[in-house]
């Protein structure tokens, strides 16, 4: 008898206990979700604001600065920054009338980022293979020296590299823009080598028995097995090159070579102080950011996971 009673009281007390706990957790949870929502709004709102402004008429924008929707919806700003609108059209919509052709800079950015990515990832792949899979004297010494390059901050090499490119007569050329970063990246080599070290020797030995040479091993065995990290690395290199500003600013001021970031800066400075062409500027900003956003839509999971890899390990 008593035992059942005890049992009953226990059962009776348990739901109350759970109810109390359930009530306490939601408070924390709601707070946490509120924080996360705020964090996301702060993160994403500027992107919306770029779009909203870029689709507005610059004249009427002034009268409705807080309107959440585009003011006098128009794609004029995009036409104006891509060089598709005439001067009078541009001025009629509140543009500065300064000639700007982002289409050309878009092309330049694509050339710069693609060339740099292809070259540096390829060169790093070769070096990483030599460091990870081949046996030779001095390997670890040279690898350590290479890693030492990570200690040199960009600001230290930027100016001397500018002087060097200037001496070679390569300012305002794609070669000059790409060259300093095209051959060597300590981080890329480290990243790929680290991955290749994990391969088992058995596959290579089997291929060697089948008569493959060391070079055949690299391209037929190692490259396919490294496809994932190679993609990640290419993406990150491409994004970095696309967004780079300091180096192109020094080396590529000519409209035929300068990438989007530099062109954006020039466009902003050409905008009149009294009444800047905010709609045009935001359209230009979106043109510069859009390819990265598309890349992210396609490869988002890979990029996120490349940063969060540690978790899976």
């Amino acid at each position, binding site marked *: 008898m008593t035992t059942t009673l005890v049992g009953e009281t226990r059962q009776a007390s348990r739901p109350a206990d759970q109810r109390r706990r359930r009530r306490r957790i939601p408070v924390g949870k709601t707070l946490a979700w509120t*924080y*996360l929502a705020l*964090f*996301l709004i*702060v*993160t994403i709102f*500027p992107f919306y*604001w770029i779009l909203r402004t870029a689709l507005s008429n610059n004249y009427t*924008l*002034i009268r409705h*600065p807080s309107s959440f929707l585009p003011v006098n919806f128009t794609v004029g700003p995009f036409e104006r920054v891509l060089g598709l609108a005439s001067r009078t059209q541009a001025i009629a919509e509140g543009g500065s009338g300064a000639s700007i052709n982002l289409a050309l800079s878009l092309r330049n950015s694509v050339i710069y980022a693609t060339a740099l990515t292809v070259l540096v990832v390829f060169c790093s792949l*070769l*070096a990483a*293979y030599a460091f990870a899979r*081949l*046996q*030779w004297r001095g390997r670890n010494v040279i690898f350590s*020296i290479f*890693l*030492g*390059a*990570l*200690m*040199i*901050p*960009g*600001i*230290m*090499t930027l*100016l*001397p*590299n500018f*002087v*060097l490119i200037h001496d070679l007569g390569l300012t305002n050329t794609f070669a000059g823009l790409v060259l300093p970063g095209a*051959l*060597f990246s300590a981080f890329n080599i*480290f990243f790929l080598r*680290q991955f290749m070290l994990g391969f088992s*020797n058995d596959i290579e*030995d089997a291929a060697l028995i089948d008569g493959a040479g*060391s070079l055949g091993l690299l391209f037929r065995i190692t490259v396919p097995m490294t496809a994932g990290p190679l993609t990640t690395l290419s993406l*990150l290199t491409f994004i*970095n090159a*696309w*967004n780079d*500003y*300091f180096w192109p600013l*020094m080396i590529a001021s000519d409209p035929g070579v300068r990438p989007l*970031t530099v062109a*954006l*800066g020039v466009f*902003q400075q050409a905008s009149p102080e009294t009444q800047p062409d905010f709609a045009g500027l935001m359209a230009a*900003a979106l043109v*510069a*950011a859009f390819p*990265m956003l598309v890349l992210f839509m396609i490869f988002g999971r890979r990029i*996120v996971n490349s*940063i969060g*890899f540690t978790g899976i*390990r």
Partner: protein
Amino acid sequence: MGIRACLNVYDVTSGKNLDAKTVSGASIVVIASGRTATQLRRTSARRSPSHRGDWRLAVILILPATAGFCVFAAYPTIRGIYLSFTNFRILSPPTWAGLANYRRLFADDVFWHSLRVTVYFVALTVGVGLAVSLVSAVILHRLTQSTVIRGLVLLPFLISGVVAALVWQWMLDPGLGIINVVVKAVIGHNILFLGSQGWVIPSLSFIAIWKSMGYNAILIFAGLQTIPSEIYEAGRLDGAGEIRMFTRLTLPLLRPIMAMVIILTIISSFQVFDLVAVTTKGGPANASNVLPLYIYDTGFAEFNFGYALTMSMALFVLLLAITFFQMRLLRANDSDTT
């Protein structure tokens, strides 16, 4: 243990130091490679027979990278050090100036002001930014594993500093910017976020935080995922509350990764350029004249490359000192994780 340390490093640093502008990866990299060296030697002894001709191929394969290293990393560094002792205006050959540039450095008020401004910017960006990232990472980790949300958080990391600078300059515009519209509605007058001496550095620092907080949160998130859930179960059994578990379990276990994120942020913040160059160009009245901007102006507006390089050297030494200091901290922290 050695291997895991390596993997942590390569994943975590993946985004940032591709362009070798961040030193931080290096500190950890060096430690990690030192540890794996013994393992390498072991494998090499076993495999040598089938690898007799390897050195010839190896020389060919590392040739491009070695050329790049020598010409665009080692040579410019050495040349930079040399040129910092010269009077060099790019169009005529450098002439030896001895310590003149360094003497000017110590007497240059603009330099010291610039350094103070930069340190203020770095302190704000690192202090506030990391607090926000840490809290966000912990909350994100607790609430959701959604890749979509983590992707959204990462968006500002994908755009150029120039784009970030432009959009925030527009939103902070004293007349028409949405933020000032709101500020005016609340406190009755607008604030010159980028146009007043008191506000300009906090505002720039805010933009820098906005751009990096998601990335840092994802890094810390990755660190949180490495903490086994059994530890928390054990903590719960011992009757620890949420806050106690955060301070006694989460924080100590996160220390290595936090140390890394801190140094990454410190070093990239010290080299801030695009944000400032686009928004304020150092103004108003030098209030945001950060060191990289001053170096750039000295080189490209005054054409005084010798002195610009002297200041780069000063920044280089400063960053090296910070890295070594941080390395010590990291080593000390190693014991905590295992």
